[in-house]
């Protein structure tokens, strides 16, 4: 994968030489490209908002209540992975439009002398968010492992006091981790030890100190997202027909994707994340994106009040299941009552399924985010290179 990507730069370079030879076709071609780009954006996000039904469900044993399988739901880990794919596709297409076959001096002239640096600035902020989110996923993997302990304990038969207490201990750790994560994010402060005092209380594996894994002191994901939107405005007038439009679209997509990631998993400092994202509602390409944004935004507002480590669908369900299994554990008396045990068993199975999915998809998601990181770095370098060329071309010949 990597080498192919590395060659991309020069490959694009070669094509651009060819395309430059047909300058006349360019404007027409460009209009076509722009329209296609918008259509692709719209299509991709529409699919994310409401995925097409699977072609032929292999078996009918799954799919309980929802018509959309849980794996496809917005904010599920599978969905987040799709979102990353979408981002990478959009990004590649955008870069082709921005750089391929373009006279370098074109993107150094006004208004691009303002728009391009602004865009690059956003991409740098996106990089830090990627890093914070990758750390956040490390925390989610910690939750997953705690949940796995609980699952394994509650799957034991005969189910005894020891198993239940073992599960409760793991679940309490899980729930503390989930709640601390958020409190820490709000207060942003580091916590000192304190663990040994709590240790006898039954719960406490010791928490990952998320603040110590953060991006940097005083760094705030919410602020960064906010800063990314600061000068993000749809192009007007005759700018709206040209290159400024895809630049605006790509920036919007970037901000949106970063916003989703930040909301999905534990992330440093998220107070105020629900704030308005300047996504223009009337534009065709943006409609599904706005739809997703509203859905997630509502969820976030709900969660923000009581605090949440993240909106990742699996985490939310994990938390719910965790609470109800702790309740089960609290009311447990050996031997288990049949009814309570059965409903607990169903929850355990659900938890096990969540863990299984996390086990399968968290690491790949993490890798995808790293790929996004690398892609952004590379694109930035390519754009700067073109600008440099432009600088040389426009410099007075000595």
């Amino acid at each position: 994968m990597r080498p192919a990507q590395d060659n991309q730069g020069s490959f694009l370079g070669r094509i651009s030489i060819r395309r430059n030879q047909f300058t006349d076709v360019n404007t027409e071609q460009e209009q076509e490209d722009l329209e296609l780009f918008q259509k692709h954006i719209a299509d991709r996000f529409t699919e994310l908002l409401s995925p097409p039904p699977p072609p032929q469900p292999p078996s009918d044993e799954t799919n309980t209540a929802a018509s959309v399988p849980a794996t496809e739901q917005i904010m599920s880990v599978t969905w987040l992975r799709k979102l990353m794919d979408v981002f990478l596709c959009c990004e590649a297409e955008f870069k082709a439009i921005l750089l391929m076959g373009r006279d370098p001096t074109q993107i150094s002239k006004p208004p691009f002398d303002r728009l391009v640096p602004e865009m690059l600035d956003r991409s740098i902020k996106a990089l830090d968010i990627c890093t914070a989110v990758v750390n956040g996923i490390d925390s989610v993997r910690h939750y997953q492992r705690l949940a796995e302990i609980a699952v394994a304990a509650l799957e034991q038969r005969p189910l005894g006091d020891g198993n239940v207490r073992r599960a409760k201990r793991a679940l309490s750790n899980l729930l503390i981790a989930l709640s601390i994560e958020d409190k820490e994010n709000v207060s942003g402060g580091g916590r000192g030890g304190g663990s040994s005092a709590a240790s006898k209380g039954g719960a406490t594996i010791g928490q990952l100190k998320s603040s110590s894994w953060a991006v940097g002191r005083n760094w705030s994901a919410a602020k960064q997202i906010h800063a990314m939107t600061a000068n993000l405005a749809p192009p007007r007038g005759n700018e709206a027909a040209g290159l400024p439009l895809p630049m605006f679209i790509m920036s919007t997509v970037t901000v949106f994707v970063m916003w989703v990631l930040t909301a999905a998993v534990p992330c440093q400092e998220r107070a105020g994340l629900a704030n308005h994202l300047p996504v223009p509602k009337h534009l065709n390409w943006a409609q599904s994106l706005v739809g997703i944004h509203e859905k997630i935004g509502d969820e976030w507002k709900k969660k923000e009040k009581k605090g949440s480590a993240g909106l990742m669908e699996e985490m939310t369900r994990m938390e719910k299941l965790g609470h109800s299994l702790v309740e089960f554990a609290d009311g447990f008396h050996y031997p288990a009552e049949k009814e309570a045990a059965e409903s607990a068993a169903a929850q355990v199975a659900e938890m096990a399924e969540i863990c299984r999915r996390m086990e399968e998809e968290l690491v790949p998601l993490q890798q995808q985010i790293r790929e996004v990181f690398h892609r952004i770095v590379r694109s930035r370098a390519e754009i700067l290179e073109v600008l440099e060329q432009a600088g040389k071309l426009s410099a007075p010949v000595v």
Partner: protein
Amino acid sequence: MEKNDKDPDDHHDDHNDKSSGEEKGDVVSDAHPPDDAHQDGISKDNVDESDQDPGDNVDKVDSPSGQEAPEIHQTLESLSEELDQLLSSLSLHQEEQHKDSNTKEKQEEEDDYFQIPQFVGKFLDLFEDKLTKHDSGEPKTTTWYQDPEEVSSLLDAVDRVSNLMKLLLNTKSCLDHHEPLINHAGSIQQRAMAFLEDEFRILLEESVIIKEPSVVADDQQDHHSDAVVVSQDQDQMVAPECGDQEIEYPGYSEEMVTLLKNIAEKMKGGGYLWECREVYLVARRNILMRTLKQDCEFEKVSVEEVLKMSWGELEREIPIWNKTFKNCSSLFFPGELKLAEKIFPGGDDEGSLFCIVTHGLAIQFLGFYEAVAMTKRSTEKLFKILDIYETLRDSFPAMEKNEVTSARSRLGETAINIFLDLENSIKSDSSKTPVPGGAVHPLTRYTMNYLKYSCEYKDTLEQVFKSHSTMEREEEEEKEEENSPFANQLMRIMDLLDGNMEAKSKLYKDIPLSCIFMMNNGRYIVQKIKGSAEIHEVMGDTWCRRRSSELRNYHKNYQRETWGKLLGFLGHEGLMHNGKIVKPNLKERFKSFNATFDEIHKTQTTWVVNDEQLQSELRVSITAVMIPAYRAFMARFGQYLDPGRQTEKYVKYQPEDIEDLIDELFEGNTSSSSAATAKRRT
């Protein structure tokens, strides 16, 4: 009936006697559920059988404790032996059952009932007492792990409970008939494991022995010898207490590592490895971060911050990161890996444990380095970037391979681009003011010093250019196969520098001066190259030789342009006519010679040749041409001038004077040269 009833009953009674905490209360009620009647019913038939026909050693075990001496003072230790015997017979029983199960399934149902003697319950109670004693949370004078006997007693007991649980759960008859006991034992096992888990974490976090020089100082070698000395000292003075000569990071004593390993082993034995691993991961990650913060003053920065830093700030930041990174790779990461291997031996997941501990940190480092590679390129950054490149190349443990590769190629590309920038800045340097006196141009100085310094990273740069050059460059370089890509890069820069200097030499109206300028720069370049083994190796002897011969051409040109003309005055033509001297011509010749020489002296003493060798080469070669010619001229024609006034007027210089004056050339005197001449004459 009676027999079978006895187990839970006795057990129950014991319990009531001693029960102190609420937990026990739970156990009691759980252990004696109202509906264990059905068990009794099922097992009834077997009771007598097992009693009378004890088969194996069950009987032996059973009789002494259970029946004969119920009130003998029992301890955990005394019961342990019995329990061990029971466990081994249980497992034998189980094996047999497995063998049997193939042949006679029917019979199995009837035969497999296994009597659990009452001392098992007693053992569990005593063990629980022990746990209560330890995890009561009251301040104690000594903790359990400080007493080796207590350690082995406790850990062995944990093992026994785990083994008991395993056998109970794996024996069908036990599952059928002893569920309350299983529940009770499982409950106590859980309590023991929770206790171990807490202790494991506390030990991990709090038993680190802090050793003074725990971190690589700026100079690694110094550090090394220091550490040896220090540890030897410690050996003599403090050693008796801790017994460890060298406690390296992560700083647990051997005894502590063994204890941690034993706890992990017991937790694994009881199926509680996950908890143990998780505690380990969390604790180690936190400790590692704390260590970096304290020992290396390591603070994370965002990419954005890095890009906002001035080069000055970043230049200070990079060594801190490199140092931290090197510490990680030489000390912390290997220490973590070793610790994971020691505490969780034999598993195949120490690697993954280690990765989870270090993952976030690795991402941090790479992020920072990528950010550095993203900062605005400038030639001054090359060396720091190469430092980082080398750090990543040499010090990154075998992890996050793709990530490291990517960061390295980014840094490599940046380094290559810096050379391209250098090329461009040489190409575009078009300053129009000639350097006074034809001295070495600052651009030459800068470029050569830069290249010389960069050649201290020669091997790295060779590697960088080989691995990270873009395709176009490679194609371009195909024709110059015999040289390495980096050598080609240097040659290209030299050629560009040469071309630039040649253009600059045209700024001098005086051809000899432009020759001096070229010689100065050329000599400077050659000297720099010869002065550094690394760059010399890259450029090669052939290149140096070619360069030197070019310099000789400039020398010849200079000689011809300046001194050829002067020599012309010393020719014989036109001075004799029909065998007679033409005196006015001779006088004219002397006058012209003197004037021209004075002029040359005047201007060329202001010229600059800093290289001493070149200066003396020039003077020697001038002298070698001028003095014999002048001497011969004097010898031949000096006599025709009248001694005294005329001679004094026309023979301004004796050959020795000329020699002295030649020795004044190229001194770069800015003061008027006529003054020097005047001085000479007095």
